């Protein structure tokens, strides 16, 4: 089987523009609290969810909007929700980390790792009701060290649940390099629970699609869960306004704030260990540099990669359509907002 690259690209473009719209609203102060965007994850989400059928379920983490966009949840209702409006998807009660759509069997949670058991429950119900549904759980590489995920891998394997675990490996958990706190390799770890484990370049939507096809076929056939480890960039930092990215982006301005206490701590008495302390200071600098560098210099934008696979004429049309769909949703949302503002 071959993916319909135009369909995939359309989904990716929709997700990206939606995230940009959210970022804009957030920057304008219309969205309170944290905002974790899924920019960079589009190929993973599109490649996996292209296999979704009506009746399948979605369990999502704190970057839940791209899958919900792909799933076809009304865009304006999500925007209204993250702005805390009564007409929002969840009546303003959930907000961006807790988007739920019952009609789409889609739930999310801000507790890292909890999309795994939630997905197992969706999959259990699907198995029990025997109507051919399956469940997708999305989570990050950091979440893969959470007991909730590890136990769920076992549960799904032991019960042969129709579940697809999708680990979006952006190699970071906030400011922590996942590698530095993770033993072994995540793909092999999942395999050790007795399920097929696919490792895939998550910036190449067609490869994700192919891996997911196998995982989904297996789940639908009642042969149990699979694990997909898809590497991808974290393009906007951990969340909007990520202070570390800020340091990287506006070093002078931020250094004024972060610098002095740090330097004070590093040079406080007794000074005996000065060299060592400078080393620690260096570590922090390095983390910031890596983080920022990855974002700005080496990140591979999956959207650009996918774009290259799409014929020039359709590409512009697809982008145009996606852009206007999102623009229209923003307009509708702002309209709804004004009515109550």
């Amino acid at each position, binding site marked *: 089987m071959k993916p319909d690259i135009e369909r995939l690209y359309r989904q990716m473009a929709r997700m990206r523009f939606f995230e940009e719209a959210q970022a804009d609203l957030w920057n304008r102060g219309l969205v309170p609290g944290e905002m974790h965007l899924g920019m960079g994850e589009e190929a993973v989400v599109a490649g996996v969810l292209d296999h979704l059928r009506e009746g399948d379920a979605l369990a999502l983490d704190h970057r839940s909007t791209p899958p919900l966009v792909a799933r076809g949840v009304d865009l304006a209702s999500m925007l209204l929700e993250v702005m805390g409006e009564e007409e929002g998807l969840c009546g303003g*009660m959930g907000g961006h980390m807790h988007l739920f759509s019952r009609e789409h*069997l889609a*739930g999310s949670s801000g507790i890292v790792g909890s999309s795994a*058991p939630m*997905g197992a429950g969706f999959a259990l*119900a699907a198995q029990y009701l025997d109507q051919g549904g399956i469940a997708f759980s999305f989570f990050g590489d950091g979440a893969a060290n959470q*007991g*909730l995920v590890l136990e769920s891998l076992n*549960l799904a394997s032991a019960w042969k649940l129709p579940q697809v675990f999708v680990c979006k490996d952006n190699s970071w958990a906030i400011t922590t390099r996942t590698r530095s706190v993770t033993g072994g390799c995540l793909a092999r770890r999942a395999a050790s629970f007795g399920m097929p484990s696919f490792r895939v370049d998550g910036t190449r939507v067609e490869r994700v699609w192919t891996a997911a096809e196998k995982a989904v076929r297996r789940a639908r056939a009642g042969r149990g869960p699979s694990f997909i480890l898809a590497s991808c960039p974290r393009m906007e930092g951990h969340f909007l306004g990520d202070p570390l990215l800020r340091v990287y982006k506006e070093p002078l301005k931020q250094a004024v704030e972060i610098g002095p206490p740090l330097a004070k701590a590093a040079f406080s008495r007794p000074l005996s260990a000065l060299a060592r302390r400078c080393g620690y200071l260096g570590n922090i600098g390095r983390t910031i540099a890596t983080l920022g560098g990855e974002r700005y210099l080496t990140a591979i934008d999956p959207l650009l990669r996918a774009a290259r696979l799409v014929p020039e004429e359709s590409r512009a049309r697809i982008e145009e359509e996606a852009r206007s769909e999102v623009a229209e949703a923003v307009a509708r949302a702002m309209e709804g907002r004004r009515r109550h503002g």
Partner: protein
Amino acid sequence: MARMTFAQAVDCALETAMAADERIMVMGEDVTMLRRNLYVRFGPRRVRQTPISEAAFLGAGVGAAMAGLRPVVEIMLVDFIAVAYDALLNEASKVNAFSGGKWNVPLVVRAACGGGYGDGGQHQQCLWGMLAGMPGISVVVPSNPADAAGLMLSALECDHPVVFLEHKLLSDYWLDYLGGASRGTVSFDVPAGGAEGEVAKPPQPVPIGKGRVAAEGSDLSVFSLGVSLHRCLEAASSLAAKGIRAEVIDLRSVTPLDRELIADSARKTGRVLVVDEDYMGFGLSGEVAATVAEAGVEAAFARVCCEGVIPFARHLEEEALPNKRRIIAAALDLVSG
């Protein structure tokens, strides 16, 4: 009506409900043995053995409930809920609110609770106060077979999560398993009226959130539940012999709490005694005090609860859990004070 043990009554309620509603399924560790009567009737699809992964399978219960099932998730002893706490605190109890009221979690969490058989401080807790502190769920603690069956039926019909706690001294099989009752060289202070009793056939639902006057009285109100309720009834008999008429109320549900019943009884007697096997601080007994005070009722107040980690030694345990002696002493104090 039929005479049943507490355990039989719960089984009977479950069996009745499962026969009528295909969506109900039971899961937990060792349930094919613990619920073998259900297992032989309904099979492994509906009575499902789990790994020792409470966080995952309680979390899965939440997801399954969202997706249309009505799971009864067993956590063996309520103490073990600690490894699965997130599923209750941050998922099950919040989905309804987060979804703007559009999505329910019809989940029953069943666990054994309570002490009095010498198993130590990690296996005999009650924790109902702590659990009741989560908005969005109900917690029920039946004290006899009829209520056990009736509250289980109501829990199974409820659209939000209900924690159903069965006290081990009332459930013969738990006492057999954990107390080693089979050896014949140990004995337990099992309240007869709680461990066995009449149950309607088919069992009738008992509304969640409604307490019950177990003994009428006018000198003081004693609020309790579970095994302690029976200790209170015994104490009330002794007090009656001294001419003190205690009104004993079986709260049955911790949340929602029957605040009206509490306020009415407190208003009538002017004296409130809470007898609670759970920890004293920041739990049910405090909530009863607040309920009385909020209702504007002026009443003397005292409580007999578990004040620290439950000791292992039987004689220390006996003193740590509410017993008849402590209840009588507290009641006399209240009445004379």
